[in-house]
């Protein structure tokens, strides 16, 4: 766990960013909000790339910026890894050259191996907490990073010969080789199509999982938030709108104008079971869900994002239906939204699920609060997430 304390102001033209919060970073924390909310600017301020920013930034006990105290640690001395939206690989160097660029400077900067901070600080920095959190985390050495991100076959290639997904993998590996205390990822998947995204996501998870580096992950895609993050920071119009766990933040009705009304849904926690014939079984509070293979090993805890419009309800367990997943649930509340729709809040053994149906259907079925129902979920509606 690292504490990132931020209290900054940045003005550029009409845009104002004002962010004051203390983030407890562990695993992947999403920075979410609509375009123009200031997500990228916030990341750049943290990295020291916005010289006009005023205020204070500190990671753990290390002060990075304090305008009042005249402290401004330059970006090259902040011990962080930054993955830019456009990757910014050096086109004149091979993939290996790009990786070595980072590794050599990390070695020079830190004296010993790249995993310098694990050994405890000669400068007395408190680093013990990281070790207990990730006792088996490999060092961010060149061979370990090449292996974790599958870069071996790319080493000799020039960046302009790589695909979008490969470019982002190299960019993540390069940033990781700086032995960062925190990784800042700025929409690394935004340029990729859906299939490539799915290929890259496990690598993003490895940054936080295998290497134990806390990740701040900027995105405007709510599915990526649900899939990757355990906690989130919500930005709107240059200000902090909310922060907290992903599931409860996405469920908060008053935040829907920002998180997106049509995206409304819920997040279920599940344990992955076996994968066979291209389908994976998931355990949701004792109930079984079948989804197309999500590529995680049995026993892994995953998060499922289910959109309200992908959930239907039935009063009896349906037979002979193409929708495979029917979970017994209790109808907790009927919330009227814009006509002709209503939104049902369902409880599946303590987990919440939202369903969007027509008002007509509620009247025809005679649905009332407290009634047992079956929640019908289309298999395709799932996104999974690896937990650390």
């Amino acid at each position, binding site marked *: 766990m690292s504490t990132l304390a931020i209290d900054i102001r940045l003005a550029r033209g009409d845009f104002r960013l004002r962010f004051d919060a203390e983030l407890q970073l562990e695993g992947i924390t999403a920075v979410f909000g609509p375009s123009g909310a200031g997500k990228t600017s916030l990341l750049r301020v943290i990295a020291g790339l916005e010289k006009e920013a005023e205020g204070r930034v500190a990671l753990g006990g290390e002060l990075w910026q304090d305008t009042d105290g005249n402290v401004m640690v330059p970006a090259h001395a902040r011990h962080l890894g930054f993955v*830019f939206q456009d990757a910014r690989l050096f086109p004149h160097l091979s993939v290996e050259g790009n990786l070595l660029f980072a590794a050599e400077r990390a070695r020079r900067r830190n004296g010993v191996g790249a995993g310098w901070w694990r050994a405890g600080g000669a400068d007395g920095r408190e680093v013990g907490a990281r070790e207990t959190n990730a006792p088996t985390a490999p060092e961010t050495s060149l061979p370990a990073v090449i292996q974790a991100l599958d870069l071996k076959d790319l080493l000799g290639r020039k960046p302009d010969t790589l695909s979008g997904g490969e470019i982002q993998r190299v960019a993540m590996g390069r940033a990781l080789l700086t032995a960062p205390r925190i990784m800042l990822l700025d929409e690394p998947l935004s340029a990729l199509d859906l299939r490539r995204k799915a290929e890259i996501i496990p690598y993003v998870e490895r940054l936080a999982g295998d290497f134990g580096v806390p990740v701040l992950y900027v995105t405007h895609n709510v599915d990526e938030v649900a899939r990757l993050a355990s906690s989130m920071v919500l930005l709107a119009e240059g200000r902090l709108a909310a922060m907290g766990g992903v599931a409860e933040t996405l469920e908060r009705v008053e935040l829907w104008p920002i998180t997106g009304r049509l995206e409304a849904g819920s997040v279920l926690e599940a344990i992955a079971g076996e994968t066979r014939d291209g389908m994976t079984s998931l355990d949701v509070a004792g109930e079984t869900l079948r989804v197309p293979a999500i590529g995680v090993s049995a026993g892994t805890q995953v998060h499922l994002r289910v959109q309200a419009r992908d959930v239907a309800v039935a009063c009896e367990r349906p037979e002979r239906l193409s929708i495979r997943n029917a979970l017994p649930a209790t109808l907790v509340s009927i919330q009227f939204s814009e006509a002709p729709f209503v939104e049902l809040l369902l409880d599946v053994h303590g987990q919440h699920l939202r369903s969007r149906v027509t008002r007509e259907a509620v009247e025809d079925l005679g649905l009332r609060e407290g009634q047992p129902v079956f929640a019908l979920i289309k298999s395709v509606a799932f996104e999974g997430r690896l937990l650390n």
Partner: protein
Amino acid sequence: MGAIELGPVWLSLQLAAVTVVVLLVVGTPLAWWLAFTRSRFKPGVEALVAVPLVLPPTVLGFYLLILLGPAGPIGRFWVQLTDTALTFSFQGLVVASVIYSFPFAVQPLQNAFENVGRGPLEAAATLGARPLDCFFRVALPLATRGVVTAVVLGFAHTLGEFGVVLMVGGNIPGETRVVSIAIYEHVETLNYAQAHILSAGLLVFSFAVLLGVYVFNRRLPVNRV
């Protein structure tokens, strides 16, 4: 037709080489500043750098003569420093050539740095590279085309200059008598044979150098950032 006169050729090459070195040392930081500054003084500085492009060489030469002459501010300082005059000397020619060829070196460098942009430099910084490290390992390799263009244009333009040299340097063999002055004198004295030799030599040399640059630039990968 007498023996080929090598003195002026050698002097021209020396002058061009020294000028290019000074141009790079002085021009690169200025080009860098112009490429990345948000200062409101930028347009003024850009205009000043470009002035030698439009001024008649005689105007530039005239003012340089006044500035560099023993009574001028720079000339007086030089006399105090070295006990020699800047005007009608090789050193004076270097100063004049640098100013005269300044836009030919600064503008390609500035364009090249602008094309590199802040992106790769920011990336390098987050990877732990200090500013000079960023410059030599990232910016300069990505700006190679611009550097080559600046060197060649600076070199060739210095070889070809005439008016400024005539005003500031005169025609002293071994000191300021460069090829273009020698050609002028040969023509004035109706020594067409020597004028032909030097002129053709300059023509062929210039063409060869430019051809070499274009071929090199074609082979050089375009580093899209």
